[in-house]
């Protein structure tokens, strides 16, 4: 996994893949994989439209970057940090 965060102009220098919990407000990307082991959580994420190949934008970070509010095609979904860590993403905007 190679991770370089975007610069101030939102240009991504070189990112192959990162986890959702590392994303900051304004980050636009695509979900690559969801690695949660709990089937229930997996189903819940898919039901809400958080699924591989889905595009998303990080709208807000709650206190201490603990919970993220992301916008997906089906609306807005809040996800806690421990799940975000298990969601692999890659940026959609390129240099």
């Amino acid at each position, binding site marked *: 996994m190679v991770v370089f965060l975007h610069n101030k102009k939102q240009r991504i220098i070189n990112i192959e893949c990162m986890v959702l919990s590392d994303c900051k407000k304004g980050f636009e990307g695509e979900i690559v994989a969801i690695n949660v082991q*709990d089937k229930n959580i997996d*189903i819940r994420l898919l039901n809400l439209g958080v699924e591989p190949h889905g595009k998303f934008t990080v709208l807000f970070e709650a206190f201490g970057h603990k*919970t993220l509010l992301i916008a997906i095609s089906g609306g807005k979904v809040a996800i806690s940090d421990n799940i975000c860590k298990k969601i692999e993403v890659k940026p959609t905007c390129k240099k």
Partner: protein
Amino acid sequence: MQKIILVGNPNTGKTTLFNTLTGQSERVGNWHGVTVDIKEHSLRNSNEIIIVDLPGLYSLDGYSPEEKISAKYIDEHKNNLIVNVCDACNLKRNFKLTQQLLDRGANVVLAINNTGKTQNLEKVVEKLKKQFSVEVFIIDARKCKNCKDLINYIHKAKQNNTKLQILNKDNSNSMHSLSDVLNECSYKTDGEKKQIIDKLLLSKWLSIPIFIFAFMAVFFITFGSVGSYLSELIGNAYANVVDCLFPAIQNNTSNWFVSFLKNGVFAGVGAVIAFLPQITLIFMFMNILDDSGYLSRVAFMFDGVLSKIGLSGKGVLSLLTGFGCTTSAILVTRNIENECVRKNTAMVLPDFSCSAKLPIFMLFCSVFFKMLGFFAVFCIYAIGVLIGLFVAIILAKFGKDKVCQQFIMEMPKMHFPNVHNVFKRTLYHAKDFLVRVGSMIFVMNIVVWLLSHFSFTLRFLPSDINASIIGVLSNVVLPAFKPLGFAKPAIIMALMAGLVAKEMVITSLMLAGGASTLSELSGLLISSDSVVGLSKAGACAFIVFVLLYPACISAFAMMSKEFGRKFAISSAVFQLSIAYIFAVVAFSFISGHILFAIMFTLLLVAIMLGFMIKLRKPMCKEKCYACEGKCL
């Protein structure tokens, strides 16, 4: 009797449609998981058709308690007509559930709730009707638009008495077919425009100040000048009506009957009714915040903080409901998936003061804190919240099995509150309060009057409460309450009556003191000679005790139903213990016995630790799969 079942994803407008179809006023809200129980009522003007409102579910394999309830109910009643309520702004996702319903052979009719702006929705409907022979209705549940067609269809279905196989297995190909229709018709929603209000409400630096400001404003208007003025108006109006009626009754009537009417009927009811404006106002503001979608934002904002102390962002919705009614709030905990977090939330709920405690705080604060009354009420609520959080922290820190939570929640759209919804819900709460006063409080008031005006030998005692049945019983437990500064049996009597319903505390004090108005009772409370007199330290201890001691009998029953009797009893004993010790600490500090207060504080901490560790062990059995335990 034919059942029509409303099914759909959370927050798609099922309960709103249910209210439209049945004329009921079931709770609706702009967040996911408002409905946590099955509701049934007959269709308007037709007793033979029952409309069933199920809790929202994303799929039939859901894992939260309310999703399981819905899935089970659908499985057991799949031969009934199912009205699948879909949100027009999110059809693709909503169709997943539709597909599952069809796969299980259910009779489905689609009701597309179109509350936003969409393109080509009519085309989609035509195509669905043509390709899948599915009956589709475009409705607006909030504004009751086009619901007539759906009602006519339901009536028609009843008349024909036919099994409505809308989609048969031959043409219900696959999930992609339904989604393909959306693509083929170039179906689009206008999407949610960037909302400036969300930027403000969820901003890292402004979100908390805005939250505090909003709730301060609610408290100021409710408990400050506006609420007090309206309360005084209602109180005076009631007193005038009673004054007009009483002389007519008083003539040629025996003493005990006059006392019964004056104290047992009119005074007690009047004392509680005077607080109708405050209770209406607080519910109105809560409904406004609820309907606008702000409460879900609060859940998101506080998830990080609450998860550190064993609670969850979703628990916020339950905790805020607790300010209205603890019984309802216990039921709302069903939207929390983790059983352990559910129990933690239920444990701290009694510390979030319900609206029935409001009259007690208002009265005591206006009597003992005079001009600072509003501020004192706010502080009482804040102390309750802080103690609740303290309890949660101890649960989280010292429990043997720590909780790892996975918070996933759909965020509803923020919109201007629907005036009709807010008005209807507020009216419902006001009516509910009046019905409660007119039924349970009225009856209990009479029971307390009988117990406080008759001896064990059934002798009428007009002014000797100590010799009455309840007086004798209160005297037995009175020594235990001496460290709290409660030296009079009438105070114990009021607290005991409060276990049935918190409104009974005030009416019992009025009965004991022989007061017929709240201003008379106010005078008696500060008079050391009266049977209900309290010192300032005693009054503070009384407020703390009322704030923390177990919620009413209906909340206990709900706790038993949801978590078992053992847990309910443990929780009640725990609440009673902390109420007692915190009240002793408050009394000791205010009356200057600092050493005694410190000793009791240490005792409090020791008891809480012991209790929590013992209680916690069997509570939490769930492990964290999302992060492989790294979060613990």
